[in-house]
């Protein structure tokens, strides 16, 4: 395998896809760090002419799926560069959203919610997960300017008139 440091080229305007494994900003940062590290390793190996496919560092599933979803090869310097640029661009300008639950959500739940958001809100959205025990049931979504309280407590708050009516009726 031969590798050389590619020249700087403008990023192609292809539609970049985020996989469900990349959920948070930290996931994105880790992916960028990993691909940069891989790029550096391959570049050094190219200089030493000692690299082979077997000696490639172990990559994470996240990075592999990310490359696969965007038809990019991690062994190709140009593709790696393109991936890095895309990921950096996403990190800088990507849409972000914060969602809080009462307890730590399972990865499956997170993936389902993120999938829904990328299908319905924005396909490159990044979601930060937080925990607020006071929520109890439901979640609270915080965007740049707004907070959407989707907890059961807020639902009860909205239904105060109905609850008062029920209490008066029962008394």
């Amino acid at each position, binding site marked *: 395998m031969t590798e050389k440091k590619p020249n700087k080229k403008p990023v192609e305007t292809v539609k970049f896809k985020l996989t469900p494994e990349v959920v948070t900003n930290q996931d994105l940062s880790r992916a960028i760090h990993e691909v940069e590290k891989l790029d550096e390793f391959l570049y050094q190996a190219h200089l030493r002419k000692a690299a082979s496919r077997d000696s490639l560092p172990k990559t994470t599933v996240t990075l592999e799926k990310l490359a696969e979803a965007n038809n990019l090869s991690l062994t190709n310097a140009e593709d790696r560069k393109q991936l890095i640029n895309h990921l950096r661009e996403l990190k800088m300008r990507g849409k972000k959203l914060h969602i809080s639950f009462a307890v730590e959500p399972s990865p499956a739940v997170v993936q389902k919610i993120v999938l829904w958001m990328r299908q*319905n809100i924005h396909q490159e959205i990044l979601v930060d997960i937080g925990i607020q025990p006071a929520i109890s049931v439901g979640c609270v979504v915080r965007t740049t300017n707004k907070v959407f309280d*989707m907890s059961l*407590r807020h*639902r*009860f708050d909205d239904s105060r008139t109905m609850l008062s009516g029920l209490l008066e009726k029962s008394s």
Partner: protein
Amino acid sequence: MIQDHAGTILIVGSLLAATLAFIWMAIRLGSPSTGKNNEDSIKTVAENAVEQIFNDEFREELRNRGRLHFEKIIGENAMFLQQDLRLTTSQVNEFMKQEITKTLKEAFSTYEQSIQDAKNTALDSINKTRVAVEEQGQVMKQQLTETMEKEKQDLINRFEANMAEIVNHYVIGAIGNQIDLEDQLEYILSELEHNKQAIIDDIKSGA
């Protein structure tokens, strides 16, 4: 009394008879035929007659009579004095009794009036105190009612203000940790769907 008067009359009569006898003898002896000797004899006779009339026995009798009379008068006067004294004592007693009764009546009247005044004052004071206590009680009752009403209203307001929190608390207490996020997913997605457009709008316009 009659006996005393008779005794007195008898003494006076005896004295008058003796005097008349003396005067008659003096006239008999004083005729012109007598001289200086006659005068002396008359004088002597008179003196003898006087001596005979006013002898010691007569004098003693007079003295006794005078003593008796004096004693009698003294006794009468003493009796009168005693009567007067008794009468006076009785009157003084009566007067004293009246005066004391009057004074006591006045004192009692004054005392009674003082007691009545004190009683009236005490009653007025008690009435005023009672009225004040009743007014205070009324005010306190009103304040208590207002406070209780306010407290009740505050409680209701607090309950209504925190109703969602309270209901949520009891719901969570009832269901505990039985609802995990997997079970909530449908609810969460429906809520997200409900707020979808608002989230999109905010993300698009994001600062």
